[in-house]
């Protein structure tokens, strides 16, 4: 099942690249959900010959948390804070795609000289997880809104997940579950905070009528 790991690594980087070219927050959330969904199969692919209960728990937990709950919270947030869906990146989308391509090359170049303990199931896991992380940083740095920074953070986490699940045998499951929970809580808190910020500002600006999402003033 080596090739399935390779394919999911490549798709993870590909989806991170498409996020760089997406100009709507809704689209970005959907792509991240898809990426998380794909990556949640990686533990199963890694131990295809003997799938243990631990693999299924890790995979299922990741899928429920990152591919369902976190996107649901994000969708709830953008619906409730009536924000414009268009993003305004610091550097243009075209430039960021090209930078993304360069970052992928950098990730592969770095992993040439990276010697890590533990064995990797596939030679593509390390460079692809690095590339996903770098692309996540890129999203975080170039997108200015609070919510898009959270999205960048989620992409970085997906990269870390890919990296960690290939080092799986060297890492206790508790840590992975702890990280997942952390992310969940972080996104949750972000949603609440964004909602509060929004309410404060709306109240100061127009006390009479607060437009709902999709409703013109």
């Amino acid at each position: 099942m080596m090739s399935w790991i390779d394919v999911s690594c490549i798709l993870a980087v590909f989806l991170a690249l498409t996020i760089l070219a997406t100009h709507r927050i809704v689209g970005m959330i959907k792509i991240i959900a898809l990426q998380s969904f794909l990556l949640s199969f990686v533990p199963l692919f890694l131990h295809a010959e003997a799938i243990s209960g631990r693999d299924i728990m890790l995979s299922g937990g990741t899928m429920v948390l990152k591919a369902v709950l976190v996107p649901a919270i994000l969708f709830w947030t953008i619906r409730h804070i009536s924000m414009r869906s268009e993003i305004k990146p610091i550097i243009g989308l075209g430039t960021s795609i090209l930078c993304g391509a360069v970052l992928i090359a950098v990730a592969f170049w770095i992993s040439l000289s990276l010697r890590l303990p533990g064995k990797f199931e596939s030679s593509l896991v390390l460079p692809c997880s690095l590339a996903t992380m770098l692309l996540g940083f890129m999203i975080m740095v170039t997108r200015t809104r609070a919510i898009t920074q959270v999205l960048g953070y989620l992409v970085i986490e997906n990269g870390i997940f890919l990296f960690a699940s290939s080092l799986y045998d060297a890492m206790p499951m508790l840590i992975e579950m702890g990280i997942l929970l952390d992310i969940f809580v972080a996104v949750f808190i972000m949603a609440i905070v964004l909602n509060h910020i929004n309410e404060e500002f709306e109240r100061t600006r127009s006390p009479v009528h607060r437009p709902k999402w999709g409703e013109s003033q």
Partner: protein
Amino acid sequence: MSSVLSMAFPILSHWLIVCFLSPLFLGVIAKVKAFFSGKVGPSVFQPYFDLAKLFRKKCVYSSTVTWIFRAAPVVILAVMLVLALLVPFGRFKAPVQFSGDILLAVYLLALGRFFMILAALDTGSSFEGMGASREAYFSCLSELAMFMNFITLALLAKSISLSQMVGAHIPMTWGGLEPALLLVVASFFIVLLAENCRIPVDDPETHLELTMIHEVMILDHSGVDLAYMLYAAAMKLFIFSGLLVSIIIPVRTGDHWTDMAIFFGAMLGLAVLIGIVESTMARLRLNRVRLLLLISFALAFFGLIVTLWRA
């Protein structure tokens, strides 16, 4: 005499395939689109009737045009016919193949495009000038992606002949689901849509000058000239699809008829896929087309890196 015949036969059979099947490809796409919008739609042979109608008509030339305008349709059709000889169609091996013919293929495409742009500028119409400028810009980006894909394929096949690159040598790498090929296929599909002015990039059906690319450049052509242009566009789509199908499904069962059935079945599938893409997607805003092509380039570049990494 017989040796001349045996040399001419592959060339003729190649031309027959391209000339007879390329309008059918367009017909299938139109049929799929009609199905998705809940209509019966014209027959799949409608493009043949359209071409036949245009071939019966006379050309009308504006008084401002020069010989370039008259030469362009002929050059473009000739380029497509020559290009068809370099591309393998399933079991039909490319009649002309030599090391480095990939460059010839890309430059032939560029030659056709160059004449199309010149002809559009020659009319002096501001709309056509706009279309020409867009075509030049987008093809600049798509050529970049195309070359990246070809470099990846050349590395995989260890050859720089088009027939070797997309022909029978790739299946060895598909056996293990070579992930780089996945990227090449995705990237090449975007290039195919962009080069042939299909929907996410350009709508072949619209005739609103502000949004179109390819259609606006042939606005002033009429009669036989227009037929040449449309025929060449159909052939270009067919050739690109043939390349993509050869990359995805390299034919290698021994039986001649099975191979042919697989190839043409896959071509039909690709036509249906293009129809589905066209029915489910809206045309992108012009400034987003650039992003699509850059994504295609980034994918091809990523494919190249992965190939180098695994080599």
